[in-house]
C-alpha cells in the first residue's frame, strides 16, 4: 500500500518556512527562465502576426532586407502584369511599391535615440496590410508632409504624439494619426505618402521593394519562382511570412544569455532542494522507522519522499509562474539587424510557457529529491527508531 499523499502535504505545511523558502528559490529560477521564454514568444508573435502567406516580398537580388534593397519604378510596371496577382475591388492589381528607410527618434529609455522604420506607402499598400486600422487621428493625405505612427511608437516615444512635428528628410513632418494592426511589426513603424517620402530622399525613381498579393497559395509559389527566374527584373522574391519569421533571430543574444543564466541557476536550485529534502529525511528518521513498523515498504517510502520533493518544487514552479505574470503585456523593444531598426513587442506569458515552468520546477525537484528519498528508504528500522 502506498503512503497517502495527505502525509506529504501535512509535512510540507508543518514546516512552512522551510517549504516556502525552498519553493521560492525554485520559483526564482523558474521565473528567470520563463521571463526569457515570454520575451522570445512575444517577439515571435509580433513577427508571425506580420506576414501574410499570400503576399510576396520582392527585393533586389542579393539583398535580404527592405532597407538595403532597391526596386526601380520602371520595374513596377513589369511586375504589375505578372500572372497570379490578386486584384482589389476596383480591379487594380494588388502590387504595392514601397520605400523603406530609418529615422531616429529619442525615447525615455534611450536619449541618444533609437532607429525606427519609415515606410513610404501608397493607398494600395495600406489596403494590403491585413487588420490595419487608425486608432486615433486620421490617415496622411497624399502630397502632404504628414505621417501616421504605429501604436507602440506613440506609446514609447514622447515626441511622436498626434500634432507633434518630426524632423527628417528635408524638413518637418506632422504626426496626424496612430495606427495599429493586431500585434504585427506595423505597430513599430511610421507610414507616410510614398511620393512625398521618396522625393525627400531623392529616390523617386529607385525605391526599396514591392509587395505583391497572389490569388492563392499555389499562385504565390508560382509567382515567387517566376520572379526569381526573371532576368530582366533581377529580383529575389520570398513569402512575406518567411521574411518576418527570419527576423525572430534578433532575440538570439538575449535568449542565449537567458538560457545560460537559467541553466546555472538550476544547478544551484537543485542543490538547495536536495539540502531541504535531506534535512526533511534526517528530522523524520523516527517517523520513517514507525512507517516501516506499520508495514510500509522501502519502495513506498522512497516514492513518498520523492513525491514530497516533487510537490515542493511543483509549488515553486507555480510560484515562478505567478512571479512572471506581471510581465505579461509589458511592451519592450529590441533592435533587429535585418531592418536596422527597433521592433516593439509585448512579453507573452502563454499557457504553454506556464506549463513549461511548472514542469521545469518539478524536474528540479526530481533531481533534488531522488538521493534523499533513497537515503530515507535505506534506513534500517531499528536504527531509525533509535535516532533522535
Amino acid at each position, binding site marked *: 500500500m502506498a503512503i497517502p499523499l495527505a502525509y506529504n502535504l501535512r509535512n510540507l505545511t508543518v514546516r512552512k518556512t522551510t517549504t516556502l523558502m525552498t519553493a521560492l528559490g525554485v520559483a526564482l529560477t523558474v521565473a*528567470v527562465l520563463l521571463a526569457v521564454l515570454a520575451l522570445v514568444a512575444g517577439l515571435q508573435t509580433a513577427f508571425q502576426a506580420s506576414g501574410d502567406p499570400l503576399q510576396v516580398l520582392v527585393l533586389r537580388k542579393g539583398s535580404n532586407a527592405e532597407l538595403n534593397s532597391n526596386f526601380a519604378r520602371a520595374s513596377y510596371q513589369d511586375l504589375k502584369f505578372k500572372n497570379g496577382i490578386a486584384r482589389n475591388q476596383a480591379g487594380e492589381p494588388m502590387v504595392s511599391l514601397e520605400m523603406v528607410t530609418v529615422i531616429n527618434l529619442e525615447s525615455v529609455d534611450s536619449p541618444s535615440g533609437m532607429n525606427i522604420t519609415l515606410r513610404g506607402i501608397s493607398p494600395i499598400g495600406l489596403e494590403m496590410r491585413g487588420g490595419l486600422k487608425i486608432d486615433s487621428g486620421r490617415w496622411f493625405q497624399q502630397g502632404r508632409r504628414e505621417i501616421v505612427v504605429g501604436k507602440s511608437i506613440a506609446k514609447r516615444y514622447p515626441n511622436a504624439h498626434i500634432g507633434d512635428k518630426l524632423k527628417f528628410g528635408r524638413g518637418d513632418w506632422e504626426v496626424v494619426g496612430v495606427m495599429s494592426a493586431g500585434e504585427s511589426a506595423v505597430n513599430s513603424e511610421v507610414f507616410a505618402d510614398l511620393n512625398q517620402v521618396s522625393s525627400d530622399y531623392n529616390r523617386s525613381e529607385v525605391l526599396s521593394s514591392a509587395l505583391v498579393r497572389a490569388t492563392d497559395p499555389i499562385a504565390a509559389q508560382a509567382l515567387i519562382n517566376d520572379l526569381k527566374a526573371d532576368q530582366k527584373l533581377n529580383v529575389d522574391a520570398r513569402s512575406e511570412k518567411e521574411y518576418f519569421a527570419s527576423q525572430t533571430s534578433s532575440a538570439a543574444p538575449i535568449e542565449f544569455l537567458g538560457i545560460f543564466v537559467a541553466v546555472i541557476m538550476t544547478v544551484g536550485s537543485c542543490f538547495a532542494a536536495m539540502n531541504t529534502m535531506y534535512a526533511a529525511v534526517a528530522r523524520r528518521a523516527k517517523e520513517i522507522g514507525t512507517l516501516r513498523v506499520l508495514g510500509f515498504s522501502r519502495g513506498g517510502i522512497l516514492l513518498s519522499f520523492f513525491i514530497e520533493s516533487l510537490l515542493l518544487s511543483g509549488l515553486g514552479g507555480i510560484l515562478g509562474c505567478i512571479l512572471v505574470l506581471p510581465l505579461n503585456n509589458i511592451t519592450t523593444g529590441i533592435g533587429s539587424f535585418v531592418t*536596422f531598426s527597433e521592433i516593439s513587442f509585448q512579453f507573452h506569458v502563454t499557457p504553454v510557457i506556464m506549463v513549461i515552468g511548472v514542469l521545469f520546477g518539478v524536474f528540479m525537484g526530481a533531481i533534488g529529491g531522488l538521493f534523499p528519498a533513497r537515503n530515507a528508504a535505506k534506513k534500517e528500522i531499528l536504527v531509525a527508531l533509535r535516532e533522535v
Partner: protein
Amino acid sequence: MIRYLPLIFKNALRSRRRSILTICSVAASLCLLGVLMAIYHAFYFGQATPAQALRLVARNRISLATVMPISYRQKIQQVPGVREVMIMQWFGGVYKDSKNVFARFAIEPSRLFTLYPEYITSEEEKKAFIRERSACMIGRAIADKYNIKLGDRMTLTGDIFPVTMEFTVRAIYDSADNNETMYFNLDYLFESLSARRRDFAGTFVILADNPNSVSGIAKAVDDTYRNATIQTRTETEQAFQLGFISFLGNVKVFLLSICGAVTFTILLVSANTMAMSVRERVREVGVLKTLGFTNASILGIILGEAAFLSLIGGVIGCILASGLTYLVRQAPAFIMQLKTLNLEPSVAALILLVGVIIGVASSFIPAWNASRTPILDSLRYSG
C-alpha cells in the same frame, strides 16, 4: 572572535553533506553573479585602451544605415585637435556561407595604421596592402579559422552593396583585442559601384592628438553640421560600441534584474540552511551557555559559520566564473566588449563581499533567536 575559529570550522563540518550542498548551491549562484557582473562591468565601466581613448566615430545622426557625403572629411580634418580622419564603411556581405561571420570594412589603407597602431603586421605586408588596390588585410583569427594564407584569394558577395568583390590577401594582422576583422580598400569598392552610388561615408573614424581633446572634437564636429541637411553624431569609439549593445534591447535592466533574482536566491538558500542547522543545535547552544558562552559569542559563532560557508562558495564561484569568462572570450562574437571579458579583481572582491554579507544577513534571525533562547528552554528542547 579568532579563538572561536576552530569551533566555527568544526560546526561547519558537523553535517558535511549539508555544508557541501550549501557551498555548491551558493557557488553556482555566485558564479553566475560573477559572470553577469563581469559583463556589466565590461559594458558600462570598461576602460578604453590607450589607442581606443584617442579615437572617435562620426556617423549620420539618423542612423548607421544612412551615409554621409564624403566631403565632410575636409571640415572634420580642420577641427582643432584632429590628427587624422579615415572613412570606414561597413560592407557586410557573405564569405562562402552566410554562417561565416566576421566584420568586413572598406577603409583607406594608407591611414589605417595611424588610427589603429595596435594592429601589428610586418612592414612588407603593410606596404603590399596599401599599394595593391584589390588587396585585403585580415585578422589572425580569421586566417586561422578559414585556413587562409598570404596571397590567397577571397570573394565577398555583397548584400548591402549589389557587387561581388574579389580580393587577394596581402596582410594578416595581430591585435590584442580584435583579430576578427577584414579590411579592404574603399576606392576598390567605389570602383565596383555605379557612378551614381559612389563617394559616401558610412562613418568617419577620427584620431585625436591627445585624450583630453576628445570631447571637444565631438562637440565641434557636430556643431559644424548642426544646421546641415545631413547632421552628424560624433562619440568616442567606446560609446559608439556601447550603442550596439543598447540595440540588442534593454540589456541594462535585463542584467540588473537577473542579478537581483540571483542574489535573492542565494539569500533564500543560505537562510534555509542556517535555519535548519541552528534548529538541530538548540540543545548544544544550551550546553555552550552553561559553559559560560555569552549570547554575543554564540551569535558570533553562528554568523561566522554562515559567513565561512558562503565565503567558500564565493571562492569556488569566482573560480568557475573566471573559467566561464575565458570561454566567452574564445567564442566568436560581434560584441567587442565581450572579446576582453574578464573577472576583474574588483568584481571578484565584490562577489566575495556579497557572499559574506548574504551569509551573515540570512543567518541573523535564526542565530539571534538561538542566542536569546533561555538555557533551560534550550536544554529541554527535543529536535
